[in-house]
Every structure is written in C-alpha cells, then in structure tokens.
C-alpha cells in the first residue's frame, strides 16, 4: 500500500493530463502542479469531470467541489489539495491516506 500525499496526487493528475488532454493541446506545454488545466485549454469541462472520476477512483476518495472556487480546483495542486482536505475522514492513524 503506497501512502498518498499531495505530491503523489499531483503526479497522478499530471500523468493523466498528459495522456488524456484533447487534440494535441498539450504539445509543447509543460504540465506541472501549477498548471491551470482549464485556462490553458488542456481540458474542457467534460474532460475535467473525467479527471475527477479518475482522481477519485485512483485515490479512493471523494472530491467535494460544492464550496470550492473554480479558480482553485482548475489548477493541479489546488485540485489535489482539495481531494486531501475533503477526505481527512479517510486518514489512518499515521495521518496519511492510502493508495488502493
């Protein structure tokens, strides 16, 4: 079982984005934790939902966007922080989430 940290989530999201962004939009564009996936055109709204589903599936946690600002969760690290923040209930005794 791999401990899940923000860095680990960022890696997952960046890897997914590199493979799943549409129409070669990622060509020549560096994707990292500070990348705004929407503003850069890497993902449209439907692509973002796909990413959300993937993130929840991989992390085994639910990402609640109900009170989040879109400018926060459209950036890779913002989305990952939200995933961690919203699911502290899943934390174990070591204070870490676990990767399925």
């Amino acid at each position, binding site marked *: 079982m791999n401990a899940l940290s923000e860095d680990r989530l960022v890696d997952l999201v960046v890897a997914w984005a590199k493979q799943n962004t*549409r*129409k*070669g939009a990622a060509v020549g564009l560096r994707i990292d934790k500070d990348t705004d996936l929407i503003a850069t055109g890497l993902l449209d709204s*439907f692509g973002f939902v796909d990413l*959300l589903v993937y993130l929840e599936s991989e992390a085994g946690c639910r990402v609640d*966007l*109900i009170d989040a600002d*879109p400018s926060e969760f*459209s950036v890779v690290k913002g989305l990952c922080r939200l995933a961690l923040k919203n699911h502290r209930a899943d934390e174990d005794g070591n204070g870490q989430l676990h990767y399925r």
Partner: protein
Amino acid sequence: MIGEKKIRNLIRGFAQSAERFAERPALVVDRERLSYGQLSCKAQSIALAILKTEEDPYPLAALLAYRSVTAYAGVLGILASGKGYVPLNPKFPIERTRTMLLLAGCSTLVVGTECLRELPALLARVDRRLLVVLPEVAEPMSLPANFPNHRFVFADEIPSANGLVYPTAVDSGAVAYLMFTSGSTGVPKGVPIYHRNVRPYVECICDRYEVTAEDRFSQQFDQTFDLSVHDMFVAWERGACLFSVPERSVMAPAKFIREQQLTMWFSVPSVIGLLSRMRLLSPNCFPSLRCSLFCGEPLLATQAQLWQQAAPHSIVENLYGPTETTIAISHYRWDADGSPRECVNGIVPIGWSFAGQSACVIGDDRQAVAAGNSGELCLAGSQVTTGYWNNPEKTCEQFVRLAGMGERLWYRTGDLVQQDERGCLHYIGRTDQQIKIRGYRAELQEIEAVLRKVCGTEEAVSVPLPSSNGSTEGVAAFVSGTAELDSDRILSSCRQLLPDYMVPWKIYSVKELPLNANGKVDRSQLAERLKGIPE
C-alpha cells in the same frame, strides 16, 4: 429614405433604463460593478469615438472582446452609434475570425484589453484599412508603428460621453447584430438579425417572465452565441442587473449562482448534466432562482427534473429556436407531474411558438403533415430573418414559400419534429448533418472540408461521439486514402481553422470508408464502429 418606417432600436430599453435607474447596478463583470449611468457613459464614449473617427461609414462594426467591461460597453456603444454589432471570439482560430470580419465587411473593430494577444495576428491578416477602437488601452504600444495601414483610437483619445442621444428608432432594414454559424461549405454563414426581429422577442420575454429591476440575470453564453442577446437585452430592458459568469465558473457555475443570488438563469442543458456529474446539484441548492430557461440543444426529462429539484422556487422552461429565428421562438414549461408523460424519447417538448410567430410541419412534398406525423419544422413570423448575409444561394434553400401559405416566407429549420393533437411540438432529430456540440451548432460537412484540406485526401468523414440525447460532446474523424496519418499534426492544423468544439477528439485511419447500398459513405456504420472502439 424619406418616409421609411422606423423601428424601435434594440438599445431603446437600455437607454430608458439608463435614465430611470442611473444609480442601479447594470453589470457585474470581472469583479467590477457598473451602474446604468456608468455603463451608459462608457457606451456613449465608444459610440462617439466610432462616429468621430470612422472614415468610411458602414452599417456594421465588429467587437473583439471577452467577458470584460468592453465586451458589454462595446455592444452598447456600437448600437448607440447606429450600427449593428458583429461579435468575434478570441477563442476562435484567427483565420476564422478574419473570415468572419471580412465576410461582415466591417471597417471598424472595437477591442478589449483581454484580446490584445490575438489582435496583432488578426491585423496582420487584414488588408482592408480598419479603425481599431481600444477603449481601455491607455498606452499606444507598438500597434500604430507595426500596423501603419490601420487607424487606432486609444483610451486617451476616446471622447467624453457628453452629447450623444441614443438612436431609439432605426430604419426597418437596420441590422441589430450579425452572427456566424457553421456552414456546410466550410465557410461560416452570416445570419443578420434586424431590430425588427429582436425587438418583438425582447418585449415578449420581458412580459412572459415579468422581468423587473430587482432581477439578477446570469450571462453564461459567449457573445458569438446569440443566446447572449437574451441575457443582455432582456435584463437591461427592465433595469435588471447582468452578472457575467467568469470563464472559470462557466464550467461549474453552482457557486456563482448561489453567491450572486441570481434570480434568472439561462444556459444550455449540458450544464445540468455537468453539474450533476460533479455532484453540485443538490435539492434546493439554488433557492434564489425564480426563472430557469434552457435552450440550444435537447433538454432531457431527467435534466429538467434535476434542475427543478435544485431550484424549487423556479419555473423551468425549455426554449427552442435557431439563430435565424432570433434566440428562441417556442417554449414549453416543465411540470413535474404532467411533463414526464409528454416527453418523446425522454426529450422535453419544444412546445408552442411565441405569440406572433408561426410553426408548420412539412413532409418531403413540402405540404403540411397531419398531427402526429413527423416532418421538418418551418417557422415564420416577426422574429424570423429574411436570409443569410450575402449568400443568396443558401437563402433560397432555407427561406421558402409553402404551398397554400401565400407569400409568407418560412425558414426551414432542418429539425425533425412531431406536432401532437394539442399543437405541442416535439423534437425528434435532424433532417441533415447538422449536430449540436454542447449547444454549439456544427455542420459535419464543415469539419470534413477542413479535414480534407489538412489531410490531403478527399476521404474524410466526421462522426458525432456516441450520445443518448441528440447533443454530443464532440466528433471523431475517419480518414482514408493517406499513406501515413500524423494525427498530432492534423489535429494541430484543425485547431488553426476550427473553433475548439468542432475539432475532432480523435482521428482514425482506415483502409477504406464503408459504403451503403447507394454507394454513399455509411455514416451509421462508422458511428457503430465508434461505439466499439475502447477509450
């Protein structure tokens, strides 16, 4: 012309509201709040700048701006100058924007600061001398030096708003706005909407939904989408406030609706599905809404139910109307008890045409069909324009006279509908290859024309991605006749020529395209093949 009939200007309602409600908020955009008085000043300044500096008066002026003060003041300013506006979109490829600008014939372009990145590439492609008005740009920058062929007016040269009287009446042949839709020949089609078309719509809608100065309107649509005209001019007609949805919130506007306490919502139905998938639609999460309107693509019964639960104090209506018939021309009010039984194929009816507008369902022989039979929907009335911009051939195809209907001109929508015994219209599908991609109208032929060009083969077919509701998320392409397929290069080239929503998601190379019994490309087989291809 002496004695020519005068028509109320689209801007008339705003002009009256600016007098009556000078201190009330007219617009909230990009964290800035403008009163009617402030917005009116900006609009008048733009109008005066155009009128004082244009060298070759022309009835249309273009606007390149995006969700900014200039985007709204620019629309009003152009109308206040007595011209019709032609919205351009910085998100579209430059080549498409150039085509739209040239087809429109504009020699005046109002530009927002948010579009300065796109402006040089556009100016470099336009040979015609342009008057470029930049109301929010103080520094001349390098534009005049780099583009001496064009004339620039920067913020410090913009006249003060004193002295302009709004033209509240215009000639009956005056265009209010010119929008471009996807064209099957590969070139966008211009749809001119006249003041005489749009005024009846605005007045009808204001009365129908009892709009007041207390209302708070969403403004979700890009200005190149004609539904944006509803947001702006229905709100301003009655002194209400318009809330421009920031681009990032367009994707997930739930928080925006709650924070801004919106009372009037207008969007494509896809937004409902998206919010639902993001779990942002809970019961009573939008208690402030009193009126929710959906248009641009089929509204599913499941979507209407979800929205009604989220906005329990709101009426939910399905509006329908192609750009040619001015924003929307028919309506159906959702009723949680009775409506589910009235849906055909799970799609909410498009209902009945507005007062003063007419609908007729015709068969292949162009004769009206009996109730219950399906046929092509034709529309006529004061909201229906008379033809395409400088395109008599396409106009003759789509704007026709029907047997037994006198001299009245009918617009053939290409939409397949059924009319039930009560006269209620039900959307069934399309008679041609036009599709809706998240509400945006797209002709498969236009996508294919671009594919043929960039792939260097005549054998290119685009197919909508599998969808259950008549509105798809995008298209895929099948290409044959090329030795090697460089998918990345092709898609990159497509992005230079097509708006984002029309660019294929994927391109598949096939040995040969399947043909049906008539020797035509078998699109349904390709669609089936697409369903079988793993993600």
